[in-house]
């Protein structure tokens, strides 16, 4: 069953002015329940605009988007959407505002009308999920933490709400490799344990290649490619946005252009090297 269905979605910024820019142009695809979907695209391709439609922050200019079967244009439904779709914005640590880590995580939960006991359990659980020690941090101010830890607090505050769909906009941007790996492992583990649907937008396709079940490539507001990660990479017509891909895959694309009979659907450097070895030994 499709958990999110996007039908002919179009959205423009600054409509009817000389700066009008079509951010999304007739987009259609579906997101299945329980999958890990990666969204990639260059800066300005419409990634962040797209995901803000998932919880009703933006409305389509034309077309429709159905979340859990209901149209987000429905005003009555919009008030419930935030309980179903958790959205972690870019640089979420910039939106921390409470005096303590506990209150920060509890804010959303209190708004959901949960009782004290439940809030307490969920806060502890969410902090543990992101690898922070609840005992140590509950009473600290989030603003005394390092950037990487603030990011984890911000992610935890969304995880605590236990929504069915989790959408993250570049959760690793600006973190060092260690911090990025930690956040991604947390999300993957959370997805597998809780069977939630995860949509992850990343500027770094390298991390999505290994994590995502399927990929959507956004290209100038249009869907450039959509399918299983391996299928997307194996396509013939990626040249147009091949800058997005890691160099080990771009080399395979280059060689294909030189007439090599080579399979570009390789996920890791090792796979790519083996494929090159196979072709060089005369397998192509």
């Amino acid at each position, binding site marked *: 069953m499709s958990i999110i269905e996007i039908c002919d979605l179009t959205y423009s910024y600054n409509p009817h002015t000389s700066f009008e820019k079509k951010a999304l142009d007739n987009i259609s695809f579906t997101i299945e329940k329980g999958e890990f979907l990666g969204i990639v695209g260059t800066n300005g391709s419409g990634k962040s605009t797209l995901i803000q439609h998932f919880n009703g922050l933006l409305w389509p200019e034309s077309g429709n988007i159905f979340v859990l079967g209901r149209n987000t244009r429905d005003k009555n439904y919009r008030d419930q959407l935030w309980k179903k779709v958790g959205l972690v914005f870019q640089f979420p640590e910039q939106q921390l505002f409470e005096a303590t880590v506990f209150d920060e995580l509890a804010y959303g939960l209190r708004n959901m009308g949960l009782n004290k006991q439940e809030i307490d359990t969920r806060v502890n659980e969410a902090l543990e999920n992101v690898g922070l020690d609840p005992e140590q941090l509950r009473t600290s101010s989030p603003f005394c933490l390092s950037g990487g830890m603030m990011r984890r607090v911000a992610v935890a505050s969304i995880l605590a709400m236990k929504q069915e769909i989790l959408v993250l906009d570049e959760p690793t941007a600006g973190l060092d490799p260690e911090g990025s790996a930690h956040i991604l492992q947390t999300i993957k583990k959370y997805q597998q344990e809780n069977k939630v649907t995860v949509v992850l937008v990343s500027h770094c396709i390298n991390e999505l290649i290994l994590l995502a079940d399927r990929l959507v490539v956004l290209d100038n507001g249009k869907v450039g490619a959509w399918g299983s990660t391996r299928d997307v990479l194996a396509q013939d017509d990626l040249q147009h946005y091949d800058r997005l891909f890691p160099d080990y895959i771009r080399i395979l694309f280059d060689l294909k252009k030189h007439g090599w009979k080579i399979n570009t659907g390789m996920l890791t450097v090792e796979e790519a090297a083996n494929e090159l070895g196979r072709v*060089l030994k005369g397998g192509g």
Partner: protein
Amino acid sequence: MSFKGIQLLDVTKEYPGNQDIKTCALKKVNLTIKPGEFVGIVGKNASGKTTLARLLNGLLLPSQGRVMINGMDTRDRRMRMEIRRRVAMVFQNPENQIVSPVVEEEIAFGPENLNLPHHEISRRVEEGLKLMGLREFRHYAPHLLSGGQKQRVAIASALAMQPDYLVLDEPTSMLDQSCRRELIEHLHILNKQQGITIVLISHCMEDLAGADRLVVLQQGSLFADAPPWEIFRQDDKIVGLKPPDIVRMVELLQKMGFNLDNKITTRAEMVDQLCRLSKSVI
């Protein structure tokens, strides 16, 4: 005439810390950058990269030792304006250095402050727009541009001062892979066609694969200074640096028995060698 280029002579930089304990950010660094070079600077967080960059145009002054720009000492107040004209800086977040509401005006800001004649200002704005591929955005407000475009505006503004040296402190860390590559390509064009010396600080080894040499800093000391391929090959000794995928790919293929050059660090070199290799196999 005095030496052209950048010289760091026994440079030590200390910051005042807690309770009279000084933090030493750079320890006795000696470094020469010749005109026309493309130099990459790498190192972990807190290894002294940013301190080094800020010493190059006198934003910071050395605690001991000297920093010489085309023979001018950065400690000499009278030379500071001239040094800052020669050495342009671009920082991590372009939004911190953009001041004007329109792209064109942003690029004209520096030259206007030099009291240049109108036609010269227009010429420099034109050139900046052209070099950084920004012509179509000339009338845009900077906040309507993407991160990569904003970073290019910041570089175009720096170029309008006609500097000899362009120092960039992690200019790509806010950009996605594709914008990052585009920016690096622009830097190589500036370096080759305009002869501008580039000093590029980056965490991303792929950014630096095409540099003439890499300077590795570790805990404030100069740890290594060599061509990129040499640095990438001794990765286990240099903590915290992940060599580019291409270097790993070359190693894997070499283990399979294919004859590839150790010096390959860029995609173009790799494709070239592989094509040659496949012809010799067939």
